[in-house]
């Protein structure tokens, strides 16, 4: 299957390892992955901050490029290694008006978060990945509540050789990132992260795994500040891993 890969700006600039891992995993599943170098951001930072017209101009550009890949380049789906950017491409239908809304509808109908795509579309749960260690899963809010992704990543992780998945009670509680919220109200944002991390540190895990690089940046940033040895890992990074060295 030929797919358009929407990397997300955060992964592109700050966590390329997750993007490359996602591409590798998709190719391993037999996909032809097309990454359009013209893509930038989905518009989410401005949209969530109330800057609608700025969000619209950036989002409409992303939607046009992706629609072109679907309609003219024969891509059958769009895969994004971020639940919140995939959710933003769903919000685009309402954000954009007129003819662009139709494009946005086509894009929204075919955009998938990585884990959901692997399980729901390709039906792949066992990627023959190997990663030894104990980890816990963090449900990123937009993936969980906007896109309904809960079981897919757990199914994928349960098939990873050597990996032990332990559930945290706070797995579906927000990490406190929230885009500009994290820098405009840092005190609340950190208190939210700490509520999760207090539990995480009792679980004896080596890493917290998530499908969103933004949550990982928040959790890792706070874990390092607290002097914890727990790492943050993107789902794709685990799934691409073949060796048994965490």
């Amino acid at each position, binding site marked *: 299957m030929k797919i358009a890969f929407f990397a997300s700006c955060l992964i592109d600039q700050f966590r390329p390892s997750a993007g490359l891992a996602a591409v590798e995993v998709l190719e391993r599943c037999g996909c032809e992955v097309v990454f359009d170098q013209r893509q930038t951001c989905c518009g989410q930072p401005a949209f969530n901050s*109330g800057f609608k017209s700025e969000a619209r101009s950036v989002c409409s550009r992303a939607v046009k490029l992706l629609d072109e890949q679907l309609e003219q380049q024969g891509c059958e789906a769009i895969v994004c290694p971020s639940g919140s950017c995939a959710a933003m491409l769903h919000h685009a239908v309402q954000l954009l008006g007129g003819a662009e809304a139709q494009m946005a509808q086509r894009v929204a109908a075919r955009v998938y978060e990585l884990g959901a795509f692997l399980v729901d579309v390709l039906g792949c749960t066992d990627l023959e990945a190997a990663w030894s260690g104990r980890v816990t899963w963090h449900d990123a809010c937009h993936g969980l509540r906007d896109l309904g992704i809960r079981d897919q990543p757990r199914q994928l992780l349960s098939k990873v050789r050597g990996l032990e998945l332990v559930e945290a009670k706070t797995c579906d509680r927000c990490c406190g990132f929230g885009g500009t919220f994290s820098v405009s109200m*840092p005190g609340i944002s950190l208190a939210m992260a700490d*509520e999760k991390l207090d539990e995480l540190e009792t679980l004896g895990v080596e890493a917290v795994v998530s499908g969103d690089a933004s949550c990982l*940046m928040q959790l890792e940033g706070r874990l390092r500040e607290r002097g914890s040895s727990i790492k943050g890992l993107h789902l794709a990074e685990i799934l691409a891993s073949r060796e048994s060295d965490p």
Partner: protein
Amino acid sequence: MSERGSIHHLKATDFSELYPSALTNVELRGALAFGTKLVSNRRDNTVAAVDDWQDLRDRASSIKTDVLSNLDQYLQVFEQQAQASGTHVHWASTPAEACSIITGLAEAQGAKLAVKSKSMVSEEIGLNQALEESGVRPVETDLGEWIVQIAGETPSHIVAPALHRSREDVRELFARVLGRPMPEDAEGLTEVARLELRQAFADADIGISGANFLVAETGSFLILENEGNIRMTTSLPRMHIALVGIEKVLPRLSDLDVFLRVIGRSGTGQRLTSYQTLVTGPRRTSDDDGPDEVHVVLLDNGRSSLLAEEVTSQTLGCIRCGACLNTCPVYRQIGGHAYGSVYPGPIGSILTPQLAGLHQASQLPFASSLCGACRDVCPVKIDIPEVLLHLRAKSVADGPRVRDAVTHQKIRRQVGGFKMWSWAMRSPRRYRMAGRVARVMAWMATRLPFIGRCSGPLRGWTKGRVLPTPPRRSFRAQMARRKQSGTPGGGASS
């Protein structure tokens, strides 16, 4: 009807000063963590035991949508039916009007003492103060509300007014106010309150309550509770006054079927509250007890101005169960008082600015990570994040007149940044440059910490978080190299 309303003692413009002191209050945060976890776990468990929960939510939501699209008609039917059963109906478009209707009724009765059951609308209009000013002593009879009253505070939660106080805290308060030693346990403390309140019930001239629902078909109002104090408030004094927001009307008695099933589970994790008091008119000759006069005061206070748009009118669907407060990760950290409004938490963050005007509470819609937990638990399916986003966009688009000073400063600082950002994001070349600059900045800040402390967003981030070490090459650069070397996946390049 009034365009915009007002909220008593509103100080949501102080949010930026209130929440940091809440965060450093260790006792408060302990009480909050305990209370919110307890109630939201109970809620989750009772909801999980209902097979058709989503169906119930759909039905509740569609009844509310119908009510809000035909509110004027249902209110008229309610008025006619209530009058037919002997209830007096009063219309108040402002808090001042509502207060003067109620104090007028109290005066005509020669009332000196009023027993009250918990009513957020009475907090909204500052009824206790109005009563005191007209010589009537209001006594709150809900345990939590009484605690808050004798402490000289406002409720911090719409269902559990004293959620911010621990048991030890309450014991000390009782000992101080009543001037005698107090028992340690919760039961003993409740007994103390019960005895104190018993006399007030016996002496009261009027009873004042809110209502959870008005039933248009029968002209009745329904009040839910667990302590029995509402049953006493509505049946012992000679006169009863119910103060109710206009959005609380339901078309039919049978609609209560759905709402009774969702409200107890959502609010306190109960299948049904201990008492349901349905009042239809005053005491009849055959009745053993009940008031001789029943009055319903219907309050608008800005509510009708929300009806104009679908995105805003859904806010009026709220049945005040408080589930969104208990699950909200922001509320759980800072508690209700930090919001500076009688309506705190997620629902308060959309209700307060819409009732009192955005300029009075423009920081509240930004006090959220948009995690959506509130939307998931809402029994009437209010899309709170959607309304938060709507209000944020309004703050940005409508300019200084809809913002408080703090929001204005923040948005003014962001305007240039987002303009530059959108300019950069519209061209791959500019985007690559911007990305490189961001990575170099982050790299420098990880080595020279003072950089992180001086500029805006970086400063916010480095308060308590380590910056990620930026990679040398972006994903796109690595994909381009991969393509050049002949590996698949490089795709179309500009």
